[in-house]
């Protein structure tokens, strides 16, 4: 991509490249690069370094630690971060609740939360989805009833990613049960240490613990934790969901993952040579490479238009999500195919008892990753939702 950049942009890219590869601890980047699950500490450590240098929340207002960057610069920042295997800042903090508070919160809320959010002193969780809601996010049932200077919150949220680490949770709650669906929803911040909050893990088929259910049983929440106006929460939620659409393609991550597939394939012996020489495997891999390039240039074309000043919503963002998630799944499947019989087991480590052959690279994560990545076409607006968005823009039906 370098040759497409202006001299200033290229300087910026080099600066980012250098920064990520020297300032973020190598062990964290190594774990990220080889598909290991990162600890909470890894994520916090990395984000704090970013934040110290002003690189954790570039999308925020400058006053709150953001950067006055062009869309291209933001893209370079994210791409270089992913290519360097630096964990991206916690999206619940930086892409979700932060921008909402910065845009719709009171001065008091901003001061209270934004610095701690950028620096991940508070780990935020997301309390949007509810059981059986699926893509119908506005069907919020969790209620918040005002009683004096408190809300009493009752209900249940689900699919709360990394909620086990959460300090606070931002929620959509129903404050007016009589209003129509989207009306009557408020955006409420809740301390997860409050009495009545319970977090229950959801076990996933990848064997990991990534998402949770969060229960609210008569939880008392001070009214000052309301963001913006009561019953206007749906507006803030839509703002939140519309943010950061271009990053959703995760192209840098996919490049790293594909490079890894390729390196492993070259090191995998088959009865006729290496797997990378196998015509059918190589053809599938090559097609994904070409498609990933097509995806990248689709993203760049969108950025190029944004530079030109057009900022209205673009069905091409849905193309990025639709196709970007397909490519992530394709890569996870190629990785499974590289491992072959050794990608079937669920193991915690490549280490084996003395005397046995060490498991090949990828043996730990290939399988779980494949199963886990079934999610990428479901969450963040499923593929079905993206197709509906695109066809609406295309057909106007």
């Amino acid at each position, binding site marked *: 991509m370098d040759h497409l950049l202006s001299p200033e942009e290229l300087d910026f890219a080099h600066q980012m490249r250098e920064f990520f590869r020297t300032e973020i601890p190598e062990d964290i980047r190594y774990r990220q690069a080889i598909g290991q699950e990162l600890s909470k500490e890894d994520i916090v450590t990395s984000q704090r370094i970013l934040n110290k240098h002003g690189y954790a929340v570039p999308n925020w207002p400058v006053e709150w630690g953001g950067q006055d960057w062009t869309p291209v610069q933001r893209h370079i920042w994210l791409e270089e971060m992913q290519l360097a295997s630096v964990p991206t800042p916690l999206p619940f903090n930086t892409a979700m609740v932060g921008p909402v508070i910065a845009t719709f919160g009171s001065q008091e809320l901003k001061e209270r939360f934004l610095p701690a959010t950028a620096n991940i002193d508070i780990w935020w969780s997301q309390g949007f989805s509810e059981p059986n809601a699926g893509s119908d996010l506005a069907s919020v049932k969790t209620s918040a009833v005002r009683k004096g200077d408190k809300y009493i919150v009752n209900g249940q949220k689900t699919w709360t990613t990394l909620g086990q680490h959460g300090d606070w949770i931002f929620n959509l709650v129903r404050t007016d049960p009589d209003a129509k669906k989207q009306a009557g929803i408020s955006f409420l911040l809740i301390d997860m240490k409050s009495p009545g909050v319970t977090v229950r893990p959801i076990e996933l088929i990848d*064997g990991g613990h990534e998402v949770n259910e969060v229960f609210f049983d008569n939880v008392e929440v001070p009214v000052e934790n309301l963001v913006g106006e009561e019953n206007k929460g749906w507006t803030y939620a839509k703002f939140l969901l519309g943010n950061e659409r271009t990053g959703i393609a995760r192209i840098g991550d996919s490049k790293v993952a594909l490079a890894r597939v390729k390196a492993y394939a070259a090191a995998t012996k*088959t009865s006729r040579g290496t797997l990378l020489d196998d015509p059918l495997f190589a053809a599938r891999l090559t097609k994904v490479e070409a498609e990933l390039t097509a995806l990248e240039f689709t993203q760049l074309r969108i950025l190029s238009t944004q530079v030109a000043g057009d900022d209205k919503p673009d069905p091409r963002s849905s193309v990025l999500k639709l196709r970007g998630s397909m490519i992530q799944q394709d890569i996870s499947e190629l990785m499974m195919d590289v491992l072959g019989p050794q990608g079937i087991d669920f193991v915690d480590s490549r280490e084996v008892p003395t005397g*046995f052959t060490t498991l090949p690279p990828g043996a730990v994560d290939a399988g779980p990753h494949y*199963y886990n990545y079934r999610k990428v076409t479901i969450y963040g607006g499923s593929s079905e939702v993206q197709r509906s968005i695109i066809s609406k823009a295309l057909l106007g039906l």
Partner: protein
Amino acid sequence: MDLELTDVQQELASTVGRLLATKYDAAARDEVLASEAGYSESMWSQFAEIGLLGLPIDEDYDGAGMGFAEVAVVMEQFGRALTLEPYLATVVLGAGLITAVGTDEQKSELLPGVAAGETKLALAAYEPAGRYDLTRPGTTASVSESGVTLTGEKSGVLGLGAADRLIVSAAVDGGVGLFLVDPAAEGVTIDVRTQADGHKAGSVLFDSAPATRLGEGDASAAIAAVIDTANAALCAEAVGAMEASLKMTAEYLHTREQFGFPIGRNQVLQHRAADLYATLEYAKSMALYAKLAVIENNPDTRHRDVIAAKLVIDDACRHISQEAIQMHGGIGMTMEYPIGHYAKRLTVIARTFDEADALTAELAEMGGLIEARAADLQAG
């Protein structure tokens, strides 16, 4: 032409189906899954009781003397219920090989125990460096006056942990021999792992481990044949699991509501479900094709036909497992909901004994299924 199940086979299917419906529902299975052994001894005994373990074993060795057609019936039911017991390892692979190459004495020693549910077997044939290759074991047999010993490492041993006796392939006399090994013997180290689908498998290290030769002569053909049979058995199991997956998905589409109506009203999901149905029909047809190939056992076509079947079924496993989760949405990714368990088993089946690309290339090299012929060209 009659491709339907015989009355006896239908009765067998009902018997197994009823047993599993009552004793092996999702909750019971979750318990088995969480257990240390990873399978249920009590179910195993019940399988023995109703004759499933001796199904293809000769009557002389206390078996039922039936054939692969009946085994396929059982495997399909097992697929439907997603059973975790080491039936493939013990009955299809283990007893299959003993029947194929064992001496009368060895058969007498081992097969009645299998039929009675007292002996479990496992085939240790794959190796870490060999991927799916079975023809060139790095494990070697050393024959001396004091007996035979094996040295080497095996991986992907299905049913390891449960097995009372291992059947091990090793290089001997310039060919491949099979050997019986007691997993508790000195010089044998086992490392049991859990597959993504919950089945137990793992690796075995042999360090001059005492062994007995199973039968005599080169066993390559017998190994290839039993893997064909096992692949045909997996085809049947996959069909059961896919049929259950599709049924579950259809029910979900029918009952799950969103935006005020069942999500199955979405035409997009209807048509995609229809494609799943078509894929399942293909899979059923090819499971039948593989079954007939194994039963006919024509050396010119058996392997070719089985891999053709497995190829189509691997694709079906992928299509149905991926779409079943996608159409369920997030709930489909949770362990508490059954569909993900089916998806995992199907994903593993598509990677057991082979991989789709290699099967495709192999089938092409064998000349495919249809003879090249054009009226305006000389045969060529």
